[in-house]
């Protein structure tokens, strides 16, 4: 009951915002993005409770979520209308050929959700990291609990709670909801993403191809495991890829309405792993460069809004929470390295390591190879800038990780970069619809209605 109420409130929070974006019309996208956005906003709402030093209880969490849902959907009759409208407008009929993929994806995702519900939190980082903080928050009523003070325990605490507020707060919410292991939200997030991906791909490519790609990416071996194993990377990858696809659509269309979902989901990505802001910097710079060609200051404001909104959540966590609220200030000086970077040895070591993990079919199946092959074929035949940009984004983020691996001592290739590859994969999944050769839809002949004849 509590779980249902919390989930419903999260959905309503997300729906209120998604509905305001004005560019998300498909039912599948509306529902899935409402859930994703609801998760993000509700985690921020619970964080606000902590900042106000209000004790975390099931009641306080329910109250703050209800309040957030009310603020966002202050006009209740309008909300009901929009909810009804979402289910009546743009209804897509499911074709028989889509069912094959629906059943296959449903089969795989069912076990993903079931495992996220029924198995405990097993990754070591999470047991002594975000999940431990969440459990202690339930006992003591605050995220800043005694585990942070106790010197004998601190060496055992993983660094996760310091950079991944989203996952930790979601664990707090869902453990308060009465779920034994909390992580059910991860399964829901997974399903939501793949529903969104399918719906988004279907906008430009045929459902058969879209279904194939979605199934291909669900069956990426290592990534499938992270759909029910509690880590911070998969949720980050989901928000990042959704944010990026809207960013790309904004850059293409220059329609300001795309900027809001782009900024919001990218901010959620920064909230789920704070180092994502490093990736936002070049993206915001590209927005700035692309829009400043209009020579109007008004046009470059979106770039500042985009970066500012993402940075806001970094500031909330890293500055307001850690510098002004958190009792033990974490030492970050030693975590940034400036010595011996970009030497030939170091660079080749990093690059070789990255390549070894990135192209490892044991981890990622053949999804990356398929993406690159499709890119090459499309490049040869269409030679469009659009196709070029598909790989350029991937290359840009690859470069960002190369730089980060040079400078951040806590980042390593084996764990940090390997799991970060999921960001690339989910983005690749969404970018599949942007290959012109795949966009040729198979048109079904129209049947004249009896009235017309």
């Amino acid at each position, binding site marked *: 009951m509590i779980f249902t109420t919390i989930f419903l409130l999260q959905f309503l929070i997300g729906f209120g915002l998604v509905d305001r974006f004005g560019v998300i019309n498909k039912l599948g996208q509306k529902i899935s993005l409402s859930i994703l956005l609801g998760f993000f906003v509700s985690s921020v709402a619970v964080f606000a409770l902590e900042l106000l030093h209000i004790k975390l209880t099931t009641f306080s969490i329910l109250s703050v979520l209800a309040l957030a849902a009310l603020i966002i959907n202050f006009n209740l009759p309008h909300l009901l209308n929009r909810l009804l409208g979402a289910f009546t407008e743009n209804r897509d009929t499911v*074709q*028989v*050929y*889509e069912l*094959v*993929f629906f059943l*296959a994806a449903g*089969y*795989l995702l069912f*076990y993903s959700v*079931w*495992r996220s519900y*029924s*198995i*405990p*939190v*097993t*990754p*070591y980082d999470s*047991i*002594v990291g975000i*999940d*431990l903080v969440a*459990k*202690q928050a339930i006992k003591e009523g605050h995220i800043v609990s005694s*585990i942070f003070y106790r010197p*004998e*325990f601190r060496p*055992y605490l993983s660094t996760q709670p310091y950079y991944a507020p989203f996952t930790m707060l979601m664990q707090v919410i869902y453990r308060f909801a009465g779920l*034994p*292991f909390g992580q059910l939200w991860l399964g829901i997030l997974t399903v939501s993403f793949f529903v969104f991906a399918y719906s988004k791909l279907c906008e430009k490519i045929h459902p*058969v191809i879209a*279904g*194939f790609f979605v*199934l*291909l990416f*669900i*069956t*990426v*071996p*290592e990534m*499938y*495991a*992270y759909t029910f*194993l509690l880590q911070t990377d998969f949720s980050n990858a989901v928000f990042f890829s959704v944010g990026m696809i809207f960013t790309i659509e904004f850059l293409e269309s220059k329609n300001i309405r795309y900027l809001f979902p782009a900024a919001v989901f990218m901010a959620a990505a920064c909230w789920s792993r704070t180092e994502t802001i490093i990736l936002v910097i070049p993206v915001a710079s590209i927005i700035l460069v692309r829009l400043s060609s209009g020579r109007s200051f008004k046009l470059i404001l979106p770039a500042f809004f985009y970066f500012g909104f993402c940075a806001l959540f970094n500031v909330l966590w890293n500055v307001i929470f850690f510098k002004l609220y958190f009792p033990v200030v974490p030492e970050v000086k030693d975590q940034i390295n400036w010595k011996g970077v970009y030497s030939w040895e170091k660079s080749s070591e990093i690059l070789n390591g990255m390549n070894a993990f990135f192209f490892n079919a*044991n*981890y990622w*199946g*053949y*999804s990356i190879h*398929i993406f690159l092959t499709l890119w090459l074929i499309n490049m040869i035949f269409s030679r469009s800038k659009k196709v070029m940009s598909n790989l350029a984004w991937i290359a840009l983020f690859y470069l960002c990780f190369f730089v980060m691996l040079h400078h951040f001592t806590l980042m390593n290739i084996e*764990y940090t970069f*390997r799991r970060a590859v999921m960001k690339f994969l989910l983005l690749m999944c969404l970018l599949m619809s942007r290959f012109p050769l795949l966009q040729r839809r*198979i048109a*079904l*002949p*129209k*049947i*004249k209605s009896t009235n017309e*004849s």
Partner: protein
Amino acid sequence: MQRDEKTTQTNQLSETYTTKALLTIASFALFLLVQGYFGKVVFERVKGYKQEYRAYPIAYDSLMASRFGLDYILPKYIVGFMKPKKAVLLVPPKDYITKYVKHTSTFSLTNPIYMFYMNTEIRIVHSDSHDYNKANCTILIDQQGQCYPMKITTGQELESVIQLFKSGKAYAPSK
């Protein structure tokens, strides 16, 4: 005239059905490609999950006991909020090794093995990966209930941990 229109309509209908049938065959072929080749590993793994799912209601008590135990007891020990309880042997070491190490239940290469030693008996043994080279981890607990996370990087380390567990002795950290 009317007959011509009817014929056109029938032709269009049959064309539609033909296209749809072809698309269904195509999607089925693509599905088989993913199931049999690109995503074979995951489909194979999910078969194991399916068995686990079916066994879940039957072995509910033992599964949940081990899972709740794993979930709740470890952090309580680590933070030292709970005094050691009397140990309950949920899965005997030999059975565990036969049952879980050889037939892993969880997929990730990075997912650790958790072994818990409490006082004189094994409390919970939970396996997630047989690939100890990746990131397997064990939690050793000494006579006082102190926890010592240990990353297993070699076969010898894994063997010594198993031997320690089998021997029924508490972990004695080297100083």
